[in-house]
């Protein structure tokens, strides 16, 4: 094997443009959008980039971001889950009723609420695969039906307050001390650097091409810079919120599952070409049902995080624009609506974009009418990029 095949050559500009045309934009448009948002709002309002506001932003992201992560699971199959908002509210109500009205152990209540979410997802999955109803209709029925069940469960009172010093409310009022945050950053950087080093050596031993060493170093450097920057900023305020750590852990864990397990590979396969997946012996039905179960379970968890932030559940839980924000975040982050393309980091990046816009407009005291229109424009842009990329890859 000669040297030329061992080092993967960098792309020439022409090939790079070709890759872009095929929709291989990766995360760059979102990162660009984030920088633009930071510059615009940062220059219009001095509080936008303050540690306090950025920490608030991190706290606001987690709940909708977790729901968005679930949405990505069904989007990867080229399907849609319109019920995620209602399911998040319903499961939060289940958790609140069990832990407050029935006096259950809060952890047990959370587990039961997550199981209820999984059950809802199972029902959606079965209706989609066995009854062959379009996912759009199944989950549209879910959107209305689960909202109804939520109202029924809440009954006359219409609100359940969670004790401020209880376990659930504490979730969103726990801050990592600086030493713990820095230890986590160090562990993440070491693990990621170590695994990329081990992977590189294994690939070289198997005589497979590896990217140039400087590229790996740049990636690790960028990861270190981002993590350290985030911890530095948030430590200047109250510290890193536990909620952000939970959300981040979910994003990373699901990314690893999608990329390194057979289940993840089959998710992408079903999203890319159902018929090919079926002929390859993959149980398409099982993958589809699992995706809906994951979506609803993550929605349930997002609902619980949201309840924790509010210290209450009410008739509006999981309602208003939460669902649309979660879907928009997934798409803005780079998940294709046509299936088969996207990573879990889309939830993190997308919700960061949406929440920054919301937060920035709020600081500028812009009317929510304008906020909706701006968010819609960003969403339209993201979908346009997705559609163009898809057209590029099929012609």
């Amino acid at each position, binding site marked *: 094997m000669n040297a030329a095949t061992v080092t993967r050559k960098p792309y020439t500009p022409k090939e790079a443009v070709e890759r872009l045309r095929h929709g291989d934009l990766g995360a760059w448009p979102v990162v660009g959008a984030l920088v633009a948002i930071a510059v615009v709002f940062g220059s219009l309002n001095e509080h936008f980039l303050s540690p306090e506001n950025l920490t608030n932003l991190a706290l606001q992201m987690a709940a909708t971001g977790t729901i968005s992560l679930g949405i990505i699971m069904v989007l990867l199959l080229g399907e849609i889950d319109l019920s995620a908002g209602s399911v998040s509210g319903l499961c939060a109500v289940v958790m609140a009723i069990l832990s407050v009205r029935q006096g259950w152990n809060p952890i047990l209540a959370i587990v039961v609420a997550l199981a209820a979410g999984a059950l809802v997802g199972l029902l959606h999955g079965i209706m989609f695969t066995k009854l062959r109803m379009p996912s759009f209709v199944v989950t549209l029925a879910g959107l209305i039906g689960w909202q109804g069940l939520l109202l029924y469960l809440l009954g006359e009172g219409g609100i359940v307050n969670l004790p401020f010093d209880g376990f659930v409310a504490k979730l969103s009022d726990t801050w990592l001390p600086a030493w713990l945050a820095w230890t986590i950053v160090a562990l993440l950087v070491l693990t990621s650097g170590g695994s990329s080093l081990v992977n590189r050596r294994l690939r070289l031993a198997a005589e497979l091409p590896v990217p140039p060493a400087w590229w790996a170093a740049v990636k690790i450097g960028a990861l270190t810079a981002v993590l350290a920057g985030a911890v530095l900023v948030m430590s200047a305020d109250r510290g890193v919120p536990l909620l952000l750590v939970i959300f981040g852990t979910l994003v990373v864990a699901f990314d690893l599952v999608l990329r390194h397990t057979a289940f993840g590979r089959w998710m992408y396969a079903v*999203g890319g070409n159902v018929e090919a*997946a079926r002929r390859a012996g993959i149980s398409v039905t099982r993958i589809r049902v699992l995706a809906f179960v994951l979506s609803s379970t993550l929605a349930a968890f997002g609902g619980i995080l949201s309840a924790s932030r509010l210290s209450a559940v009410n008739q509006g839980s999981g309602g208003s624009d939460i669902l649309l924000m979660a879907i928009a975040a997934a798409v803005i982050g780079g998940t294709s609506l046509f299936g088969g393309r996207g990573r879990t980091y889309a939830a993190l990046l997308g919700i960061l974009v949406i929440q920054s816009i919301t937060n920035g407009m709020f600081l500028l005291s812009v009317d929510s009418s304008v906020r909706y229109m701006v968010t819609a424009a960003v969403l339209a842009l993201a979908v346009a990029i997705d559609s163009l990329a898809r057209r590029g890859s099929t012609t």
Partner: protein
Amino acid sequence: MISAKNVSKRYGAVQALQEVSLDLHPGEVVALVGDNGAGKSTLVKVIAGVVGPDSGGVTIDGEPAHIGNPHDAQRLGISTVYQDLALCENLDVVANLYLGAERRKWSLLSHIRMERSARDLLTSLDVRIRDIRVPVAMLSGGQRQSVAIARALIGEPRLVILDEPTAALGVEQTAQVLDLIRRLRERGLAVLLISHNLADVRAVSDRVVVLRLGRNAGEFRTADATQESIVAAITGAAA
């Protein structure tokens, strides 16, 4: 040797196949030709386990083989590349080669082992793809066809069935795929090639089997046969 013996199949009023027989030897490329509706696809479907015959069946080394579904056929070493290729365009070449047959430890994918053997396989077939980690959507038609054929070899089959592998390809890419078919023969595989293109058939096959209206209508050694005699058998002009 894999053989189809006296296969008959009726679809409603249409007798798709009547007492059709076909022998496939290791290291030999057999071209199956015939006009539209001659029964080529039905015969292939019977051998690949997609449909069951009304009578007759497939024998392997003289023993009757039970092929109830495509999975049985694959287990018996019969691998089929359909015309639509069935590739996932969003996945890379390695992922497509091992789709549904991923090498894994517990549930974790063995990326390096799969990529190593994918490279070895493609190199041995002389398939040139610059970066096998890019999505299949970015490959040319000939490269995709080559990937689909290479995938058929993952399960170490004895027989590879190719359904119109050159139908959608240009001149140069057709030549590549024909070269690939010759290499399958060199590996000692039996190859069954379904094609409308007599130029390709004559270029690559050892034997030509003609079907007409669901019956055997002639068999030629490619080296001895003229284009006219094959066409005559296809159209029935000689009869």
